Structure formats: structure tokens, C-alpha cells
């Protein structure tokens, strides 16, 4: 009898709780009094990866930088309107010489602690980056020899070596400007959250969410109409989709490609898409002289024989743009080159000529879903030419370690990898293709290419520089063929209809500075 009563009580409690849950979404569009336009007070964005820190110097992870972009600002940044490097905290800059720059800060920019941005904050931020031994801003630290204060808003930068692209270095997300005074008056863990962005850090629950509140005294941007901005961590793409459909969140990042049509066809939802700057490619280990991949004929055959459309369909359900160049489309000095067209007949005869038919070649890649699909598709395509591809999957950091180790002994033959560059062309070339590059997956050590990359960087004349990059592009793609470019994948948000200000960033640091959702009665 007692048991029955307890069971009945429990059931009643569950039903009542469920009833309350069903009535909790009172801020959906259309639920407000008629006639007046209001804005939703809190916008919730579902992100897949974990947010771990508000300190811009501690991390290069996009999930952190997306949040930090709301709270902190850089000296320069990519303008998503013009797709070019544009002022953010810097009002203007001048290259006195390739290793000597002058920068002027914007006046009356307020930090969240009420202090006004000045040159000392820039100097302090640089010193913190040097003293702290942070990994993130190490390239900024390495580039700068000295910063000299001229006055409160003007300073000079002396570089360790000439760099005509220094304005892009200032756009490094890890070099967001911090408030010197905040560090003098607050504990460091609080001071590091003080930025100049339109959102102030409010709360962080590890593994669950991070909440920002609007900065009412923001002088750099219009004060947002939204009061609170919450980033909720939902690792599963399916669960993010359900949360959006259920009205629990207003924006979801990286929906599954299979959900794209559902998002665009469902009433009350919208799909926002764009091209990632990420270049996916097949890299050949140019130092593995024991392998057929160092035979130029073999590489040319792969370039002719690889059907990228088929690969795009397999890896992204068709949601990617085919690449003909190693350069990504919105990188400065990109030129639309023809590259090597798909020609299976030509590939077949080249494979036969170089003796690749009947051979077994190894391919390594990471266990990310799209890379596994790309690898399997490549395996199937090469099988049609009589070449056996064996696939080895590994965790991404293991892949990076393997591909940046000595290529003569690593045993790597082919890698499927990707590269998300900044906007400047030098970054696009130097890291993956220069012999001293940090992500030289194809282990290219070609003095001619090195010299061409260095020459392009030191060229001051824009037209001549464009010519040099065009020459490099053609050389890499059609002559050296150390990698076969595949595609730039589609990036997407799913969002509630009417939501504005959520901006897709090709560099994956998406922007939510002015996000808002009108509620119309």
C-alpha cells in the first residue's frame, strides 16, 4: 500500500515537473504584447567544443576565441564586410620601414573597468606575453623587438625582421589588448576578463556554459540590444539541432551537413552558410625518397586522377567548394587559377609510366569524420587505377607530431590534412610550404620556393607582389605538386528566424558582437 502511494506521488511530481518544463519557453517570438518591438533579453548560442578560458593569451582554440572576440579587441582585425584587414583598437598605422611601424590608437575607448585605453595598455599586454611564456602570442613576441611610447595614443613598433604584413600580426587573436590598470587593482584571474568589447564576462560554469552581459558604457561599438549572451557547450551535433528546434538555444554552430536542408526548410529557423578559409589537401612527403610519392609523375597522376567533386560529396554531402589552388579564396592576393583539371585517362597513363600500378601506398590522417571519409574515398578512387591505399588513422595532435617530425625517417607517404590560414598571403605560404614553416606537412625544403616566399614578403609594390604570389601559386599547384588541394568546406550556423548579427568568419572565429533577436508582437 505504502509503495503504491509513493509511486503515485513520484508520478505526480514528475508530471507536474514536466508541465512546468513545457511552459518555460516564454520568450519565443510572438509571445510578447502586440504592437511594440522588443529584443530577446538573452541569446543562447550552442557551441560544440569546450570553452576553457577567457584569457586570450592562453589558447588558440576557436571555441575560446569566439567568446574572447566578444569581450576583447585586437589592434587590427578582419573586417567581415570588406574581407580585409581593418582597424579595431588602432585607428591607423604607417609603415615607416618594413621593420619600423607607427600605430595610432582610437581615442576614448573604454575598458570594462572604466579606464580608457592608452599606449601603456599595449605595452603592458606585450610585456605580459613576454613574461608569461604563453604559447599563443609567441609569434607576436618573436616579431616585435621593441615598442616605444610616443604619447598616450601613439607608439612606434620596431620589428626583429622586416615584415610588410605586420598589420596582420597585430590581428593575432592571442594579442587582445588588456587593461594595465585592471591588473594593478584586481586579481589576475579577474583582470584578464577586462576588455573593450561590447560584452562583459559574467559567469563561467565549466563544461556547461559561459555567460556575458552587455557593456553599457561601450564606446567602440553600439551597445547591444541583447542583455545577456550565453554560450552553451553541447558536444553532439544532433543534440544541438534538437536544442534549437526545441527553443532551448537561439543559434547552433556547426550543424551536420545532413541537417542543412532541414534548417532552411523549417518554419522559424534559418541556415547561414559561408566558405571556411580552411584548405583541405592531400600532402605528399617530399622527403620520403623510398616512396613513389617523391616521383613527380606520380604526384601529377594523382592530381589528374583525383575526382574532387566525388570527394566533396563523400566528405561533406556536397557542401564544400572545390579548390584549384593551394591558396584559400579570401586570402589576400588569391588568384583564380585553373590548376590541374580532372582527367582520368591522363592519370591512368601517368600511373602506368611511373610504375605505380599494383603498388601499395600508405596514407595517414586524423580520426575526424570528414578526413576519414576523404581517406576512404581517396582509397576507392586510387583502387580504380590499380593502386592500393592503406589508411592509418590517429588523433589530430599525433598526426601533427608525425608530420612535423623528420620526413626522411617518419615513413609517412601521403597525408590528408587541412590548414586554416590568416588573411595574409605570407601566412598561407610560409607555415605549410617554407622549409622553416611550423606546419610543413609535405616536408618541402625547396630553396627556390623558400626564396620566392621570402621575396614576396619583402615586396612593397602591391602589383608586383600579386604577380609573385600568382607565380608561386602556379608553381606549387602545377609544377612542384607537393600537395593536391581538395576543397574549402562550408561553415554554417542554424539560427532562429529573425536573429541578426551572428557573423560567420572564414577563419572560424565567428563573431557575435552585435547579435540580437527582435520579438515582434
Amino acid at each position, binding site marked *: 500500500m505504502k509503495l503504491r502511494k509513493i509511486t503515485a506521488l513520484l508520478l505526480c511530481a514528475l508530471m507536474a515537473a514536466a508541465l512546468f518544463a*513545457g511552459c518555460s519557453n516564454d520568450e519565443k517570438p510572438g509571445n510578447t504584447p502586440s504592437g511594440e518591438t522588443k529584443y530577446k533579453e538573452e541569446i543562447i548560442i550552442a557551441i560544440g567544443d569546450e570553452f576553457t578560458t577567457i584569457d586570450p593569451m592562453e589558447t588558440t582554440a576557436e571555441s575560446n576565441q569566439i567568446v574572447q572576440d566578444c569581450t576583447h579587441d585586437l589592434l587590427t582585425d578582419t573586417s567581415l564586410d570588406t574581407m580585409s584587414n581593418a582597424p579595431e583598437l588602432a585607428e591607423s598605422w604607417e609603415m615607416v620601414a618594413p621593420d619600423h611601424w607607427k600605430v595610432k590608437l582610437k581615442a576614448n575607448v573604454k575598458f570594462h573597468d572604466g579606464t580608457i585605453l592608452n599606449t601603456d595598455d599595449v605595452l603592458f599586454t606585450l610585456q605580459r606575453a613576454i613574461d608569461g611564456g604563453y*604559447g599563443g602570442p609567441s609569434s607576436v613576441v618573436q616579431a616585435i623587438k621593441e615598442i616605444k611610447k610616443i604619447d598616450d595614443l601613439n607608439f612606434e613598433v620596431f620589428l626583429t625582421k622586416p615584415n610588410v604584413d605586420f598589420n596582420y600580426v597585430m590581428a593575432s587573436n592571442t594579442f587582445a589588448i588588456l587593461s594595465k590598470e585592471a591588473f594593478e587593482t584586481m586579481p589576475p584571474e579577474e583582470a584578464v576578463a577586462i576588455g573593450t568589447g561590447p560584452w562583459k564576462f559574467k559567469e563561467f560554469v565549466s*563544461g556547461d556554459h559561459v555567460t556575458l552581459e552587455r557593456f553599457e558604457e561601450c564606446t567602440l561599438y553600439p551597445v547591444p540590444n541583447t542583455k545577456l549572451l550565453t554560450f552553451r557547450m553541447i*558536444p*553532439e551535433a544532433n543534440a544541438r539541432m534538437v536544442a534549437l528546434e526545441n527553443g532551448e538555444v537561439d543559434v547552433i554552430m556547426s550543424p551536420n551537413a545532413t541537417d542543412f536542408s532541414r534548417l532552411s526548410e523549417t518554419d522559424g529557423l534559418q541556415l547561414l552558410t559561408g566558405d571556411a578559409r580552411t584548405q583541405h589537401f592531400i600532402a605528399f612527403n617530399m622527403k620520403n625518397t623510398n616512396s613513389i610519392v617523391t616521383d613527380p609523375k606520380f604526384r601529377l597522376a594523382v592530381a589528374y586522377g583525383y575526382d574532387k567533386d566525388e570527394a566533396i560529396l563523400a566528405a561533406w554531402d556536397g557542401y564544400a567548394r572545390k579548390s584549384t589552388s593551394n591558396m584559400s579564396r579570401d586570402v589576400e592576393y588569391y588568384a583564380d587559377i585553373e590548376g590541374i583539371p580532372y582527367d582520368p585517362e591522363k592519370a591512368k597513363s601517368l600511373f602506368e609510366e611511373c610504375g605505380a600500378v599494383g603498388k601499395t601506398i600508405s596514407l595517414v590522417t586524423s580520426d575526424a569524420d570528414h578526413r576519414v571519409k576523404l581517406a576512404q574515398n581517396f582509397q576507392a578512387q586510387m583502387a580504380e587505377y590499380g593502386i592500393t591505399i592503406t589508411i592509418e588513422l590517429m*588523433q589530430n*595532435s599525433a598526426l601533427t607530431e608525425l608530420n612535423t617530425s623528420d620526413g626522411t625517417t617518419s615513413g609517412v607517404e601521403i597525408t590528408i590534412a587541412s590548414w586554416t590560414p590568416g588573411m595574409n598571403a605570407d601566412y598561407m605560404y610560409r*607555415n605549410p610550404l617554407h622549409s622553416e614553416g611550423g*606546419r610543413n606537412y609535405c616536408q618541402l625544403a625547396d630553396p627556390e620556393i623558400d626564396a620566392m616566399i621570402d621575396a614576396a614578403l619583402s615586396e612593397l609594390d602591391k602589383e608586383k607582389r600579386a604577380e609573385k604570389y600568382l607565380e608561386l601559386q602556379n608553381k606549387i599547384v602545377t609544377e612542384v605538386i607537393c600537395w593536391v588541394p581538395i576543397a574549402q568546406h562550408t561553415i554554417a550556423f542554424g539560427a532562429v528566424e529573425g536573429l541578426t548579427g551572428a557573423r560567420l568568419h572564414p577563419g572560424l572565429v565567428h563573431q557575435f558582437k552585435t547579435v540580437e533577436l527582435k520579438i515582434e508582437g
Partner: protein
Amino acid sequence: MIRYVLKRILMMIPVLLAVSFVVYFLMDLAPGDIVMQLAPTDATAEQIEQLRKDLGLDGPLLTRYFRYVGNLLKGDLGQSLSQNRPVMELFMDRFPATVKLAVGSLIVAIGISFPLGIAAATHHRSWLDGSSMVTAMIGVSMPSFWLGLLLIMLFASKLNLLPSGGDSGFLSLILPAITLGANQAGSLTRTVRSSMLDVIRQDYLRTARAKGVSEKQVIRKHALKNALIPILTVLGSTLGNALGGSVTVEAVFAWPGVGRLTVSAINNRDMTLATGCIIMFTLMLNLTLLAVDIAYAFVDPRIRARYSK
């Protein structure tokens, strides 16, 4: 009793040290390098080496391990390499959510397995026994991510009754607790059934029935109490395992528990965070098993008598 507890606690120290040794060395052997992840993509070889030095990862493995153990013996689990925060702080941030889910799932598991297991045992070889065992098998065999997504589709998406994920209060606990609990209930039901079957055949129960005690009383007061020891053992290890976090359930329901923290530490090759989390998990498991051993004394007077000697 106190001496026994103290002895057990002391015995945990070599266990924890052994675990730290194995995890630390395995993490070092695993391919992948956290320095490559923390360094910007355009970092030069010198910058990478400097960062390795700054993180204290440049010395020989044994030196680093002994330094780590030295701090561990002082109760310091170290600093997370990827998040630059104390490991203990990161773990404790997530632990309450894990405890909530572990307890919630155990309640669900007990709620399902006890009635099913008892019914199966008391109706041995009947259709009720068969269907209970089939239900238990389904519970064990169903992948958590699949059941979790189905529950989300039904209760969050279709019926809009419960939140699809996150830790936002009691309602958000229901679906993950059911998902994890259903899985635990499978094996628990089988244990309850077999323990009850062992006890039900004992002479003292026949005597109780002969004395006119009702069947309900026989089951509740005599059989269940005596069948509890093996059930407690399974309950203890189930709870202990749940306290280590369930990665799949946490991922599907965006539950901020230690399982996701540990897996992301392993994926990021964050040696100190991964080792710290696993040490804490081992500690929790050991403490739970100790609690179970102590609980034996409360349910079994024979054990209580042995402790008091």
C-alpha cells in the same frame, strides 16, 4: 572497525601511486604532443622548445614523474597544461554534476532492477522471469548514445517536456539519469534475481512460510535482506564507475561532468589533467568500495561480529 578502515585507507596509497605511474607513462608513450597544440601554427622550432621548457616538459620522463609524485604526496595534483588552472579546481568544478548524475542513475537503476529482479526470482521460470531477463538484456545491450538520442527526440523534441541537455536543474537530470540508469539496471537486475534465487531456496524461508508469515513479508523482510550482500557489491562498483563520469551520456546530454573533462584532457595530451582526473576517479572508486565494505557490517551481523573482534 576503525583500524580496518584506516588500514584500507593506507592501502589506497600504493594503489594511487601505481595508477599515477601507469597513466603518466602511458600518456607520455601515446603519440601526440600538447606543445604542438598550444603553440600557434606559425611557431618556429625555437618557440616550440621554449614553450616545452616553460611547461616543464623538457626534462627526462622519470625526473618529471618523480616531481609530479612529490607534489602528489603533498596533495597537489598539479596545473593543467591546456587550461593553466589547478587540476583539483578543474576536477571539483565538474564533480558535483557527476555525483548528481551518478546518484540519479543509481536511483533509476534500483527503481528498475529491484522490482524486476525480485519478480523474476519469485516467479522463477515463468513468463515474468523470461520477460524480466529480456528487459535486462535490452538494457545492457542498448548503446547509451542511441537510447539518449531517442529519449531526446521523444521528450525534448516531440513532446517538448524536458530539456535536451545541460545541467539546469532537476528536469535536466531526468533524461541522462534514465539513459545511464537503464544501462546499469540491466546487470543489476540479473544480480538481484540470482541473489534472490539463492536465498529463496534456503530452509529458514521455508520455516517462515510454514509459520504463516505472508509471502510479501517473507520476501521483503527475510529474503531481500539476506540477498543484499552481492547486490551491494554490484551497487558499489556501479556507483564507483558512475563517479568516474560517463563520457557518452555526458556528450549526448551536454552534461558537464568529469568524463568529458578526462577525455578532452587525454585528447589534448594534457598529462597532468588526465593523470589527476584518473587518480581522483581511482580514489572515488576505492572510497565507494570501502563504504560498501562498511555497509556489509550493517546488513550482516556475522560481518559486524568479525569487525568487533
